[in-house]
Every structure is written in C-alpha cells, then in structure tokens.
C-alpha cells in the first residue's frame, strides 16, 4: 500500500510547527500521468531495445513503486540541544 501521509514536526525555542501532508491524492494523479505517457515510454523502450540498449523503463518504474511503498513506517526523529526537534514520519 502506498504511503498515505507524512507527518512533519519542527520545534525550537521560537517556532513550533507541526503538520500532516496528505499524499494519498498524489498516487491517482501519478497513475493518470503514467497512463498518458506510457505509449511514449513503450515506444522509447522499443526503439532502444532495437538498438540493443534497453532502457528497462517499466522495470525502473516498478522498482520505484516498490521503493515508495516500502517508505511506509519510516520515522526520523532528531532532538538536539537547545530544545530543537525535527520529526518526520511516513504513514
């Protein structure tokens, strides 16, 4: 399952910022873009394969998709002196 949100929290003595980024709406958009450009990608792949230099675009796209899916659960929490704090969570 694709990541649905990113939580970002930044805190220091002066500022206190925390917000959620809903990224679930990005994936249908990307899907549409990929569908639109896939004939071009396929053409490029065919041409390059004929030249014996395959691009493996679809393999790369699949791997990037796997990479994005596995981002779920990533959490980075940095707490410094002077009460500085940065927190990023992908969920």
């Amino acid at each position: 399952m694709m990541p649905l949100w990113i939580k970002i929290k930044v805190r220091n003595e002066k500022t206190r910022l925390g917000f959620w980024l809903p990224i679930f709406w990005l994936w249908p958009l990307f899907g549409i873009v990929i569908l639109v450009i896939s004939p071009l990608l396929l053409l490029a792949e065919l041409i390059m394969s004929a030249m014996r230099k395959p691009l493996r675009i679809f393999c790369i796209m699949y791997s990037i998709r796997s990479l994005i899916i596995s981002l779920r659960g990533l959490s980075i929490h940095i707490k410094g002196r002077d009460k500085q704090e940065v927190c990023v969570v992908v969920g």
Partner: protein
Amino acid sequence: MSNDRERILNLLATGKISVSDAMQLLEALSPSSQSATFGTISPASSKTQAKFMYVKVTSAKSDNVDVRIPLGLMRAGIRLTSLIPPYVLDHIHKHMGEKGITFDMNNIKPENIEDLVNNLSEMEVNVNCANGDVVRVYCA
C-alpha cells in the same frame, strides 16, 4: 501466583531488592509476559521476522537521533542495483578494481538479498563512546 507476588513485595518492603527489580519480577509473573516468554512457540514464530531497523544515537550533550527504517525499503533499495545497465556496472567494477576492491555486484542474487535482510534480525550493534555517546543499531 499470589504467594510469589507477596514474596516480591515483602522483599521490596524489607529493602532486599530495588523497585526496578521488583517491577521486573512482577512483570515476569504477569500472564501476558509468561505467554510471551514460555508460551506458544510455534515453528513459524520461533524466528520472528524483523520489520524495521532502528538506529538510535544518544549523545552526552543531549543530541538524540532516532531513526526507524523499514527493512522493505532496504530490500527495494538493494534491488534497484539490479537495474544498473551492464556497461555502467563494468565501469563501476573497473574503477573499484583499480582501488583494490574486487566486488562484483552481478554476484548479488535476489535470494542473497532476502537472506541478508532476513538475518538482520539477529544483528545488534552497540557502541558506547568514552564521552558518553551511545549508538545502537538493531532490527525488530
């Protein structure tokens, strides 16, 4: 069971054990922990699959870093290397060879990656620096 609890509390009251020791002993007596430690160990659960790699850095100057990396991300990252075009790999191998590193990425098979990531659950790195900094890397 209640006798054991009484004995622990008596030991705590008489000062023979500390509060943390008493807590640990009471936790060990609780049914949930008993089932976790001695309970149903099925062949499937005997080797638990780690899902995350944790990197924890605690410095003496109170700079703390806490990172949780999904192991799937590592798997996907390593698999990306299989997409490197052969002529680029040759270039990499040539330059690595010149530096004395004879490491062939073609030898990394998907099953090797699986084995590597699956066995990470048994890995634990603990570094205690003289200045009080502590670095801990483990999978769970």
